[in-house]
């Protein structure tokens, strides 16, 4: 198995070196004339108002939680999909029950309005 993973490491090394070189060389070559105004956060040319570290909509958190729930479902589905022909009708029924239970939760989330963005 080493033979299949080693090339990935080499490719990662090349990609990282390429990225680091771009960062370092552009920082060395580029001109530098910093000023207070230039280094301020961009806000359409006006003086920045307040901080950017503020609270944001709870919807993003809900999406993140739902993503984890459904992603775990997907993780269960991958090994099942590979073995599913060998499991036969029993496997299909099992997964059917699993997906139905998840679908009930999905409908609940929908009815509660967690998927609304208006």
């Amino acid at each position, binding site marked *: 198995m080493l033979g299949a993973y080693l090339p*990935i490491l080499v490719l990662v090394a090349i990609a990282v070196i390429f990225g680091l070189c771009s960062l370092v060389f552009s920082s060395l070559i580029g001109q530098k004339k910093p000023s207070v105004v230039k280094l301020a956060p961009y806000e359409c040319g006006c003086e920045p108002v307040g901080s950017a570290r503020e609270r944001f909509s709870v919807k993003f958190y809900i999406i993140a939680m739902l993503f984890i729930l459904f992603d775990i479902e997907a993780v269960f589905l991958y090994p099942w*999909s590979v073995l599913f022909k060998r499991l036969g009708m029993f496997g299909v029924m099992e997964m059917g029950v699993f997906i139905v239970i998840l679908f009930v939760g999905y409908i609940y989330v929908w009815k509660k309005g967690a998927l609304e963005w208006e």
Partner: protein
Amino acid sequence: MGYEILGLPMAYYIAMVLKVLVVFVFVLLTVAYSTYAERKIIGHMQVRLGPMRTGWHGLLQPIADGVKLFFKEEIIPSKADKFAFLIAPLIALVPAFIGFAVIPFGETIEVGGYKIPLQIAAYYDTASGQVVDLNVGVLYILALASIGVYGIVLAGWSSNSKYSLLGGLRSSAQMISYELAAGLAIISVFMLSESLSLQKIVADQANGAWYAFKQPLAFILFFICSIAEINRTPFDLPEAETELVSGFCTEYSSMKYAMFFMAEYANMVTVCAVTTTLFLGGWHGPGFLPGWFWFVAKVYFLIFTCMWIRATYPRYRYDQLMRLGWKVFLPLTLINIVVTGIIVSL
């Protein structure tokens, strides 16, 4: 040929380095010239000429852009979190460039008696007489897609600018939503192939038995979700110029900006290559030309399709985008899995 390191022959190492270099240069050149192709194609679709000044019909434009960005001033905002700000472009760039490692781009070739499968993460095992590749190739690609999100979230947060933060948040919510739908859409392919190894999936599609014909819904869903996941028009909400200036990369300049740009195009190349491998028969073609030619032709056609879509459709609104992902694509992928399961097992 006699020498062995870690139980692998010398020829393996030579072939590996050559394959890695060829693929890396191929991705880099494709990324550079797809920026040019995009400007040209969209230009002509809008009855403009696109870049014309640098070289014949603007052919040197990507090089001119690259050199210009190298010499640009590097700006690190005074309020930014410096370490995260510097590392974010790297985190976005590296996964975009290494996704190609598991994609088979041609048939197994033989050089001097040593068989070389045209896939980076694979080798020919003389003991068993088989091509051994990464048996979880698809999971590797999905994992890299998830890592790419970190780069964008970090860029948005560390810039300490409101536009960047909003762009980063939107982007992460969009990417994880569509990653889910894309990940579920391809499950129906594995139900037919019974493997996560891309060599096996390509081998199953020989003689025109493409999974795009057997799983048309999964093909369309996966391609649309992938376009949304890599933040391309009509789903380029994170960079919606009209409302967010430039989204998560508002505060970036010089090569760091270019790295996000390259990551986006490299992701597009990778996604098109994955779609080709999973649904369009990989490197299989009519046979009178080598496999890699058909692979590259299919990938370039899909890249052209991405640009065509960009020239055709207006941008989605954020609520429409999330509705499409969660209320349309997610149930459709689940239904597709159940229907495939019932049909195959009957």
